[in-house]
């Protein structure tokens, strides 16, 4: 029931996201942008190069963060776990900080490259350090992730504090997570990474149900905890890394959307993963739209809006009901 509502809301928000913004766009203009395209009309260019890509990216990123949140919480059996725990957010943040401070890149796409590189390298390091291939458990993986995150974030701060104001100025707008100016060139890499990740998620759903019971019980149910762990860790790094590289670090969705999902559909991962992905997509898209509406000039970035909107809702739900324990 609630899922239907969420799906309807998502579909309703898609056109809103295309039309709303600093330059308002009419439905007619949006239609014409694709079916009577005129490269001289600013609105048409805006729709094709800015609004539609950004809307799709919001949905992709939301789904990726929600699904990877479910996986990391199932994997660690800890309701406080969030996808960034595996170090990819910190890796991307550090790489972008170095990119701005040392290489002084200007183009937004260069930032993406740094983000992807950083999250990829950090993910690989956590994977090796966490001893996934030697058959160590999820606790070691999480410890490796948080150790590396702490080191990388501290290094990031030190780099930024020792740089000049311009570097800080550019870095601070990346670090809050924003969809501003995310164009069509981003769609393919992010979309493919997240799609692949979601497919692996669904393939893993049954094994995750088993592994939520703990390594011993899941083994007796025929699952391979080692394989599930390594596949699930990879999938979290892939999806969260892609999302972070695309829009910057956004943490609250991956942490809380799984709690909402569990509230609605229960603990069965075959239902929980798509439900949470859907909810998270709604949250990110709604926050992005709201961020464009609340201020008259410019916009408030999506990472900030998610906190402002999501947190009170989350608090209300935690207070009203008994949240399903993991």
């Amino acid at each position: 029931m609630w899922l239907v509502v969420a799906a309807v809301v998502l579909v309703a928000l898609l056109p809103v996201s295309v039309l709303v913004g600093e330059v308002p766009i009419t439905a007619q203009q949006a239609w014409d942008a694709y079916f009577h395209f005129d490269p001289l009309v600013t609105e048409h260019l805006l729709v094709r190069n800015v609004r539609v890509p950004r809307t799709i990216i919001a949905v992709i990123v939301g789904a990726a963060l929600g699904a990877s949140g479910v996986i990391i919480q199932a994997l660690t059996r800890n309701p406080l776990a969030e996808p960034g725990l595996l170090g990819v957010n910190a890796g991307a943040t550090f790489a972008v900080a170095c990119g701005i401070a040392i290489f002084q890149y200007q183009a937004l796409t260069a930032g993406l490259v740094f983000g992807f590189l950083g999250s990829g390298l950090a993910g690989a390091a956590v994977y090796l350090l966490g001893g996934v291939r030697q058959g160590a458990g999820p606790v070691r993986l999480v410890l490796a992730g948080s150790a590396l995150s702490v080191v990388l974030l501290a290094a990031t701060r030190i780099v930024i504090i020792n740089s000049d104001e311009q570097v800080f100025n550019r870095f601070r707008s990346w670090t809050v997570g924003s969809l501003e100016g995310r164009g069509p060139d981003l769609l393919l890499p992010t979309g493919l990474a997240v799609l692949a990740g979601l497919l692996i998620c669904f393939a893993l759903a049954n094994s995750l149900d088993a592994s939520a019971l703990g390594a011993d019980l899941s083994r007796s149910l025929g699952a391979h905890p080692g394989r599930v762990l390594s596949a699930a860790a990879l999938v979290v790094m892939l999806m969260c890394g892609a999302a972070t590289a695309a829009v910057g670090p956004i943490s609250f969705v991956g942490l809380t959307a799984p709690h909402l999902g569990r509230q609605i559909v229960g603990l069965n991962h075959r239902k929980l993963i798509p439900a949470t992905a859907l909810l998270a997509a709604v949250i990110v898209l709604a926050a992005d739209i709201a961020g464009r509406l609340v201020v008259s000039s410019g916009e408030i970035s999506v990472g900030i809006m998610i906190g402002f909107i999501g947190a009170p809702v989350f608090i209300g739900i935690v207070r009203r009901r008994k949240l399903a324990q993991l």
Partner: protein
Amino acid sequence: MNRATTREASSGSQPSPIVTGRVLRGRNFSLLVQPRALLVIGILLAVAVLLALIGLTQGKVAVPLGDIIPAIFGNGERKHVLALGLRMPRVVAALTAGAALGVSGAVFQSVSNNALGSPDVIGLTTGAASGAITQIVLFDAGPVQVMLAALAGGVGTALAIYLLSLKGGVTGGYRLVLIGLGVGALLGSYNSLLMVRGQVEQAVSANIWIAGSLDGRQWTQVLPVLIGTIIVVPITILLARRATLVEMGDDIASQLGVRAEPTRRWLIFCGVALAALATAAVGPIAFIALSAPQIARRLSQARGLSIVPAALMGSCLLLGADVVSQAIPTATTLPIGQVTGLIGGIYLAWLLTRSKQL
């Protein structure tokens, strides 16, 4: 099946005793003495004293070991007196803030029954940062106002979290943590908003505050955390036994004669006060609240909430990080809050590469 299985099986076959140590019994009292914990406490105390002496002697003006005590009381060479006048507050701030953070982390991990529980996770540091950033970015205020605002922000946030998670007079550890996360996210968004939309100059100085620093501490900034630690830490020691019982669940605790909710309320109060005082004095310090209790517990192999090792471990970590970062001759600024993060993280990673069992 593989080596991990056999390892688990072999470690499971030798359960360690539930109560460690030996019990001294008098006519009206009995005291559980844990030799290993006492040994750890002794070693940590020695390390803390050693680090404090290094912290007082090293610097641009080297003060010989023998001149320290006279110089503290204003005797001896003038440059030594001046140097110690600057270094004493710094060393005291590191010792007390470290102890406060260590105890606060131990208390929160006990209350939330979660090794990831720390004052950071339940939004307290974020609240303190909100207070400080508001003062810096919006009002361009001086250090003492910033400290008071951080204190108010931290305590206010904790109070809000506690009241929001009350339901029928009970908080419940799990709901408390979730509400804390929510409030923390809300304040985090507010902080980011100020940082992104504020003037660059103020945002830069707010960023320096957020990094956590011991530079240029004065006694006015250090005294609150010193007094607070001296008062609050003994209270937590008195509460520790009951806290260990509450960890087993409200039902079991009340069967054993411990009222869970008042105990939890007092523990939270102490943890909040300590973390807020420490953060107000030196800014957010990464990792110590999270790691000091864990490391102390591993070393002393004690069960339940143990306060003194956590406090000493926190002091040693923070002061050690400060001594190390001052000894490294570089042109770069190394904020202490980040050095603790670097050292702690690298140490944890090193532990992971060494240990086969985790």
